[in-house]
């Protein structure tokens, strides 16, 4: 297992390799801003960061390193994800200017940009020559999670995407393969469609339940299941709105099919799966109690035991499946680029330039490569170079497959729905999902949800929202190319 010291060596080696590979006359984006930031020595900047593991990055790694390089202090304001938008807006509305730099979920960007809470970054990008390195951010993130109305409001900084994790030892076991063939008449293979998933999940549960293993388990709590619905709905051909009228179409036949399927699948998952959140589902998979799951990238790392010897990760169940995990795209082949983070500057900051220098440094090729490999934080690869980084590839035996799957997922991934007042639409979906688990009729739930979506759209203004939706729908990751 790789420990922190090994990790440091790998990072150093990779860093040297990267530095040596660059022409001598070309200063990196990180070097440029470090030099520029020295004028702010002694100054302090604040940055809003998601509370918990995520914030260990600036508190344990990047913050201290930035101080060492520039003499600037970084104060980290840890905020729970559910409160981040509110806090940012409150700070902006009050004009307090308490925050300089921000972590922003890209789906919020239109709302924050329209409200005026975010600083336009284009002049800074030009001033500090960041354009070439911005171009090496993986295209899905760069093209879809950076701009609003053609202006840069944030640097994509976290390659969040759903992957399917499965037990290779189960799928490659000849006895299980035979039992599955006898039972279903089909060969056991990692499912590529949701119809296949139903057959494989149910079949494996029947075969393995006596050993305490279920065919699959998912997180089902509404905030997580909402992303899974968004993904699956579009993979099955669903559209959120009629682009001409802006009438919600989540209650289409596709929506009802997806809702019906989601609830039906709970039957072959562990009892009480409706209550599973990120941690419950993680524990189930890492303890070897489910053959398949879908989640964010840290599952793949922790399943291999990477970083779980760190104190910060002592709550992660010890993996019983290291070396037995396979990685694939979820059924449908277009995974959700669920949540993610971008780095932005608060428009009310009194230290905009200094704060910008810090976020450019964080996001730069050199520094981001180190940050996405920190074992104790949750930043995931988002630059082309991250997926092929020799240091990362050496972290565990099949890290190559993991990074290849992540790269593929980033290329085919689907963006979270992002409109004006997105959270209002999402709130309706979260409630709809909780009603689904409570046993209500899928069609009735979705009809009510669609009516609520229409009411929200009416209130915001149909024409106004239509323009924003058209902009979002035109992005490469909005809908799969069928």
């Amino acid at each position, binding site marked *: 297992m790789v420990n922190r010291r090994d990790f440091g060596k790998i990072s150093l080696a990779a860093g040297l390799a990267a530095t040596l590979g660059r022409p001598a006359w070309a200063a990196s984006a990180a070097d440029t801003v470090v030099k520029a930031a020295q004028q702010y020595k002694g100054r302090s900047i604040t940055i809003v960061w998601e509370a918990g593991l995520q914030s260990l990055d600036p508190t344990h790694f990047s913050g201290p390193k930035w101080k060492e390089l520039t003499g600037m202090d970084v104060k980290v304001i840890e905020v729970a994800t559910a409160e981040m938008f*509110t806090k940012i*807006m409150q700070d902006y509305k009050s004009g307090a200017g308490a925050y300089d730099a921000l972590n922003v979920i890209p789906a919020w960007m239109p709302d924050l940009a329209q*409200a005026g809470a975010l600083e336009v970054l284009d002049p800074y990008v030009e001033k500090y020559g960041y354009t070439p390195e911005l171009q090496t951010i993986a295209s899905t993130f760069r093209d879809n999670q950076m701009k609003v109305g053609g202006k840069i409001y944030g640097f994509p900084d976290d390659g969040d995407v759903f992957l399917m994790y499965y037990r290779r030892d189960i799928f490659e076991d000849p006895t299980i393969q035979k039992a599955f063939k006898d039972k279903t008449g089909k060969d056991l293979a990692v499912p590529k469609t949701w119809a296949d998933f139903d057959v494989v999940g149910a079949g494996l549960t029947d075969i393995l339940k006596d050993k305490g293993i279920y065919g699959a388990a998912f997180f089902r709590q509404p905030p997580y299941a909402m992303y899974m619905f968004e993904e699956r709905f579009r993979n099955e051909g669903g559209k959120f709105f009629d682009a001409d009228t802006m009438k919600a179409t989540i209650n289409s036949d596709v929506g009802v099919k997806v809702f019906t399927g989601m609830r039906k699948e709970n039957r072959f998952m562990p*009892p009480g799966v409706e*209550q599973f959140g990120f941690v419950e589902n993680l524990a189930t998979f890492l303890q070897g109690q489910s053959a398949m799951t879908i989640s964010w990238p840290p599952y793949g790392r922790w399943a291999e035991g990477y970083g779980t010897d760190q104190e910060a990760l002592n709550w992660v169940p010890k993996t019983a499946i290291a070396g037995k995990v396979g990685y694939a795209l979820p059924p449908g082949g277009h995974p959700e680029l669920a949540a993610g983070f971008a780095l932005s500057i608060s428009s009310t900051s009194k230290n905009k330039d200094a704060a910008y220098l810090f976020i450019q440094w964080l996001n730069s090729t050199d520094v981001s490569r180190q940050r996405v490999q920190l074992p104790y934080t949750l930043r995931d690869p988002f630059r082309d170079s991250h997926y092929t980084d020799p240091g990362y590839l050496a972290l565990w035996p099949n890290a190559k497959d993991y990074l290849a799957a992540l790269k593929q997922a980033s290329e085919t991934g689907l963006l979270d729905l992002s409109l004006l007042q997105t*959270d209002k639409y999402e709130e309706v979906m979260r*409630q709809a999902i909780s*009603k689904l688990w*409570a046993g209500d009729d899928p069609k009735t739930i979705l009809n009510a949800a669609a009516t609520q979506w229409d009411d929200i759209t009416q209130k915001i203004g149909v024409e106004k929202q239509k323009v924003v939706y058209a902009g979002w729908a035109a992005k490469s990751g909005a809908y799969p190319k069928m």
Partner: protein
Amino acid sequence: MAATAHPDRNFKYWLISPAIFLLLLIGLFPLIFSLVVSFMRVTMLETDTSFAGLVNFVQLFHDARLWQSFVHTALVIVIALPIELLLGLAIAYLFLDRMPGRQILVSLLMLPTIISPIVAGATWRLLFDNRYGPINQMIGWFAGHPVPALWTVNPQLVYPAIIFCEIWQWTPFMFLILLAALSNVDRSLTEAAEIDGARFWRSFRYIVPPAIWPVMSIAILIRGLDLFRIFDIIWALTAGGPGTMTETVSVYAYVQGFRQFESSYTAAIAFLVIALLTVIVTWAIRRMGLAK
């Protein structure tokens, strides 16, 4: 005798005026500001903050979800309040007589009330967890097979779970107040009734409640108001779900104000609640004879 000059009679008002000004600033200003906001179009997401007249107040009457939240709140009050009262009274009566370890037991009984409700809610959420929670496990021991009850998901179980937590946390409050009240009841009255041949239940019914009524009615009023604004336990357990099935007025107001950022509409909800509570509390005070 030479006339002595009287000090300025208004001087005392000058002395207390800074405190009054401060109190008004802290207490009244937010109230007035909220009232002003309730007549505007303030949301955190729009730049338009123009005067809206009665739009937000009219919207209140068309908002089915708001009225459902009142029904949910009433449901919790109607079930939890009598149970807390009766249970508190019964336990207080038990603890009226001296017994070994009484003080320690009373202290232990009070523990739930000193826990923050949001912490209590989060703890109960863990206890109710289908997979790792001990409650299902214990039920399973009695049932003889695993019981996968989804306490925070199943529509049949969410209210029992919420009300159970509420009763667990706040019955001790009732108990303590009623214990104090019962301790002051003149024992000679019940003893005289018993000497006259009245059985326990008759002597208790006709002597104890009237004797403790002034205190008991205040306890009912305090707990009733607390239950009206119930938020923490529900937020921690169900967040108002499934759907909006357990969404109380406070939960709904929170969602509107801090999730949907509808500042003006939330202010209108707050004023509706203030108006309703004023009517209810005034009625209750008269009905309970507290004004006397």
